[in-house]
C-alpha cells in the first residue's frame, strides 16, 4: 500500500432512531435526500472533490443497503487501485465479536486499516449531515496551526446550542473548553463532528482510551476532554455555509424544502463541486398535459399527471390525475394514485397511496407516511 497523506474515516453506523420508520431497515446515512441523493453522498462527494481518495466507511446498523450502495465507490470516483473506498464492518476476534460501542472504539478497532496507509493525518467524518465542505482547506489550516486536532465548528441558533457539542476558544481559535450538549451553553459555536487528527495523537489516545474501562469510547465525551486536560493543541476551524443535521423527520423535511428556497446556500447545480450519487438511469420525467408543477425539484423517471406544489420528488415517482402534492417529499418509486391530497408529509420509498387518500396534518407536524397508516389504522385520513 502506498503512503497516504490523509485518510478519511466516515462513521456510517448511525441508527437515526428519531427518523422512526424511515430507518427501520436502513442506516441513517442511506436515507434518501434532495430528490436523488442519499445523505452519505455529501461527505463522500466532499472527499472526492477535496482530493481525498482513501475513505474507510464504518458500518454497523442495517448495513445491507448501505454496503451495496457504496459498492466499490465508483459513483464517487473512489474506485482506486491504491486506496479508494473500503467498507469496514465490526468483526470477530478469537475471543469475541467487537461491536462498535462508540465513535472512538469504531476507529480504534480499525487502526490496522489506517496503519497500512501510514497516514500523516486522519479525517473523521460522520454520515449524518448535509453540507458541502472543502476538507483540503481544513487540512491546510490544521497544518498551518501545527495543531494536534482540528475541529470544524459552525454557528448555531442560541436556542439550539444545547443540542450540540459546544466549543469555547481563545482569540487564536485555540479550543479551551469543550462541552457535549451543555444545559447552559456559554456560546453558540457547535462541533460539526468533523475532526482532523495528527496520526500519532490519534493512535496514542485511542489506544489509551481503549484500555480505560470507565470510558464510553466517544470522541466528544472522552477523547476530546482528555486531550484538553493534557493541554494538547486543539484548534477550531470555523465553517460558513449550509450545514444541517437531518436527524429528525422535521429536520429532514426542512432540509429538503431548503432546496426550493432561492436564499439557500446549498447549491446542487454548482458544477465545480458536484454531489455525486449512484445514478438510477431512468428516462426523463414526463409532465402530462393536465399536470401543474410549481416551484419544485423533480428527478428523472417521474410521471406527473397531477399538481406538484413546493415539493421534492425522487426518481420513479408517479402522481395520478387530480392529485395535489403540496410541501411534501416523495421518495423513490412511490406510486400516488388519482385524486390524492398530500400536504406537509414525507412519503417513503415504494409506498403505494390509493386513489382518493388525503394525508394532511391538523397541527404543524410533518407526517411520515407509514404502512400502518395506509393499512387503515387511521381511516380518518382516507
Amino acid at each position: 500500500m502506498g503512503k497516504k497523506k490523509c485518510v478519511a474515516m466516515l462513521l456510517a453506523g448511525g441508527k437515526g432512531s428519531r427518523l422512526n420508520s424511515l430507518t427501520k431497515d436502513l442506516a441513517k446515512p442511506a436515507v434518501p435526500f434532495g430528490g436523488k441523493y442519499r445523505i452519505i453522498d455529501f461527505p463522500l462527494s466532499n472527499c472526492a472533490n477535496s482530493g481525498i481518495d482513501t475513505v474507510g466507511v464504518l458500518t454497523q446498523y442495517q448495513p445491507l443497503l448501505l454496503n451495496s450502495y457504496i459498492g466499490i465507490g465508483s459513483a464517487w470516483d473512489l474506485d482506486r487501485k491504491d486506496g479508494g473506498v473500503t467498507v469496514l464492518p465490526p468483526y470477530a476476534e478469537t475471543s469475541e465479536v467487537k461491536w462498535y460501542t462508540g465513535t472512538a472504539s469504531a476507529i480504534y478497532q480499525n487502526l490496522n486499516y489506517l496503519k497500512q496507509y501510514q497516514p500523516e493525518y486522519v479525517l473523521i467524518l460522520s454520515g449524518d449531515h448535509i453540507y458541502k465542505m472543502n476538507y483540503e482547506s481544513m487540512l491546510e489550516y490544521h497544518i498551518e496551526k501545527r495543531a494536534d486536532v482540528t475541529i470544524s465548528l459552525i454557528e448555531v441558533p442560541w436556542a439550539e446550542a444545547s443540542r450540540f457539542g459546544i466549543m469555547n476558544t481563545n482569540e487564536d481559535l485555540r479550543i479551551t473548553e469543550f462541552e457535549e450538549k451543555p444545559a447552559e451553553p456559554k456560546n453558540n459555536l457547535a462541533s460539526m463532528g468533523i475532526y482532523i487528527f495528527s496520526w500519532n495523537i490519534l493512535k496514542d489516545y485511542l489506544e489509551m482510551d481503549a484500555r480505560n474501562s470507565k470510558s464510553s469510547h466517544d470522541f466528544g465525551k472522552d477523547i476530546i476532554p482528555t486531550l484538553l486536560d493534557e493541554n494538547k493543541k486543539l484548534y477550531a476551524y470555523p465553517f460558513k455555509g449550509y450545514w444541517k443535521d437531518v436527524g429528525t423527520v422535521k429536520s429532514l423535511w426542512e432540509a429538503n424544502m431548503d432546496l426550493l428556497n432561492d436564499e439557500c446556500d446549498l447549491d446542487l447545480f454548482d458544477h465545480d463541486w458536484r454531489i455525486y450519487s449512484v445514478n438510477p438511469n431512468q428516462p426523463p420525467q414526463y409532465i402530462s398535459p393536465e399536470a401543474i408543477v410549481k416551484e419544485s425539484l423533480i428527478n428523472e423517471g417521474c410521471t406527473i399527471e397531477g399538481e406538484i406544489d413546493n415539493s421534492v420528488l425522487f426518481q420513479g415517482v408517479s402522481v395520478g390525475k387530480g392529485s395535489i402534492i403540496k410541501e411534501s417529499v416523495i421518495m423513490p418509486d412511490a406510486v400516488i394514485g388519482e385524486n390524492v391530497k398530500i400536504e406537509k408529509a414525507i412519503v417513503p420509498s415504494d409506498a403505494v397511496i390509493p386513489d382518493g387518500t388525503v394525508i394532511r396534518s391538523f397541527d404543524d407536524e410533518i407526517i411520515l407516511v407509514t404502512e400502518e397508516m395506509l393499512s387503515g389504522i387511521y381511516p380518518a385520513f382516507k
Partner: protein
Amino acid sequence: MQRKLLGVIDATTYHDDLEELLTHRSLAALPFAGRYRIIDFVLSNMVNSGIQSVAIFPKMMYRSLMDHLGSGKNWDLNRKRDGLFFFPTPVVDSDINKIGSFENFAANLDFFYRSSQEYSLITNCYTVFNMDFAPLLEWHMHSGCDITEIFHENGTPMKMYLVKTSLLVKLIETRNETGYTCMKDVVLDSEHFYSICRYEYSGYAEMINSIQNYFSTSLNLLNSDVWKQLFIKEHPILTKVKDEPPTRYLKGSTVQNAMIANGCLINGSVENSIISRGVKIGKGAVIKNCIIMQKCVIEDNCYLDSVILDKDVKVEAGTILTGTARDPYVVRKGTKQGALMKS
C-alpha cells in the same frame, strides 16, 4: 444467450437529410429523447437480451460516440472476457449507407475468427425501439434459416440480420468472388442456395433518417402510448450517466406535456417539448413544440416555436425563433442566437 449471440452494430451510416445535426458527430451519437444518443436503443436492447459481446463499427467523427460509450461500463459491457469492441473503419470510400459492409468487417476479420458466439446479429445504429432479441434468436434457431431479416409489421425492412457467425465469416472472406458487398446484397439475391427468412417485429420502431422524421419522432414521445412502449422498467434504455441534480421548477414556470431531463432550471413556460440535461430557461421565455439539447441557455422573454436547438446553444433575451412541424428551425451546436437575428 451470452455465449450464443454476438452483437454487431454498423455505425457508419450518414444521412444527408440530417446534415445540420451531424456536422460535429456521427449519426449513432445523435442526441435523442432528452438524455440518450440514438445508438443507446439498439445497444441497450442487445444488453437486455443477454448479449455480452458487442462490436461497433463507426466511421468518421466518432469522437462524441467514443466519449459516450467509454469502456462500456454504463451498459455493463466492461468485461474481462467479451464486452464492448470499437472498430473504426479504415475503408475510406465505400458506400456509407450500406448496413453491414463486408469491406468494413474484413478489416477486422480476426475479431470474428476469435469470437466464440455461434450467431451474429448485425444491426443499424439509428432505430428507436425497445426489442427483446432472445425470441428472435430462438425463432431463427428453430427455423433452420441461414439468414433472418427483421421486418417491421408494416413491411419495412429494419436493416437487421441474424446469421451464423461462420456464415458471416464465409460471406466476408468470399466477398470478392461473390460480389456481395453487404448483407442486403445477399438477402436480395435469389441466385444462391442460402435460405432467407423474414421475422416480423410488431412493437414500436422508428428509423431516424431526416430532420423532419427526427423532429416528429421526438415529439411523438410525448404521447404516453409511445413512451410506455419505449421506456420499460424491466428493459431499461441505458446511457452515459451524468451527475446532474434533479430539475428545478422555479416561481412563474409553467410546464405542460413535456419530457424533461435532469439538471434543468426552468423559469419560463414549456409546452409540448423535449428538454435535455442541464438546460436553463429564463423568465417569461416560451418554448413550444421544441427539441432543446443539452446545456442550452434560453434567456428571458424568448419565444421559440418548432425549433431544434443543438447542444450548447445560447439564445439571447427577447429572441423569437419559429419553424414549422414540417420544417423545424434548426440551430447548430455551440452557436449564439441574438434578438436581432430573427428567422
